């Protein structure tokens, strides 16, 4: 009897279209980004680069250097730990193809950063930070544009393009000024879009 009752849930074509539409809406809702990771990494990077900029403008002492190192490491550890916990919690119930694609983009970007450093060291026999910073910015810009395209958020794509242009602009300046330009770029490309997405999360 129970089996029969359960099998009697056949329905008409209009209802089937309604079910498909409803489930598409559920999927779209899941894809909506609440901007938390953009806000997190925007603030973490903004503070690191701005702090580095101010440290470079005062005389170097051992204490200042160590303090800068501790702050940077603490912020990075906080950022990575928060990201990992957030992503594990989010993907607990369902793993989406878009989530996998985004993971590949950002992890490969980080690997590219390491490779660029190694290549730079092999070719130039030193690490030139004036060169490294704009190149890193270009990589972030690429990852941002790709993320925006996948999530279909024009604001993130625009942020990525601005980030790339600011990388080119930064290449005309000294390392200290590059740090200030990069900190501003993180505000424009991450913090502002992140807060907008977070505000719109319930729409």
């Amino acid at each position, binding site marked *: 009897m129970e089996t029969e009752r359960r*099998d009697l*849930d056949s329905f008409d*074509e209009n209802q*089937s279209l309604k079910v498909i539409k409803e489930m*598409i809406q559920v999927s779209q809702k899941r894809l909506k980004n609440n901007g938390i990771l953009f806000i997190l990494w925007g603030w973490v990077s903004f503070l690191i680069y701005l702090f580095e900029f101010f440290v470079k403008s005062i005389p170097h002492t051992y204490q200042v250097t160590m303090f800068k190192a501790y702050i940077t490491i603490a912020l990075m550890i906080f950022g990575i730990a928060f990201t990992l916990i957030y992503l594990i919690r989010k993907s607990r119930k*369902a793993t989406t193809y878009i989530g996998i694609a985004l993971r590949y983009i950002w992890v490969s970007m980080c690997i590219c950063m390491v490779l660029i450093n190694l290549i730079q060291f092999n070719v130039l026999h030193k690490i030139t930070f004036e060169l490294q910073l704009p190149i890193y910015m270009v990589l972030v810009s690429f990852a941002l544009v790709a993320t925006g395209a996948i999530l279909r958020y024009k604001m993130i794509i625009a942020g990525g393009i601005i980030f790339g242009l600011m990388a080119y602009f930064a290449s005309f300046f000294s390392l200290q000024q590059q740090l200030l330009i990069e900190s501003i770029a993180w505000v424009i490309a991450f913090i502002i879009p992140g807060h907008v997405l977070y505000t719109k999360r319930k729409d």
Partner: protein
Amino acid sequence: MFTDLDSILHSQVRLAIMSLLLSVKTAEFSFLLENINTTKGNLSFQLTKLKEADYIEIKKSFKGNYPLTICEVTQKGIDAYEVYVIAINEYFKEFRNNKK
């Protein structure tokens, strides 16, 4: 002439399960239950039906002391869903033509 609708998919809960599973790589039982308006027992029953038709794969394991059921749509399931959507489209096209 209308194409016959797949009787496995032409059911509210089973169609909802397939529509949801198509948008994700894998989904836990609790995810489906949260998004489909049905009971635990009925969801479990409809999942078994889809599994018997080879439209989905079900992996059962444990997370701590709790059972964990993970569902994934198969290629056969994707093909069947595509055919079903085309058939539904044909139905609506014909319906609109008759209205004119």
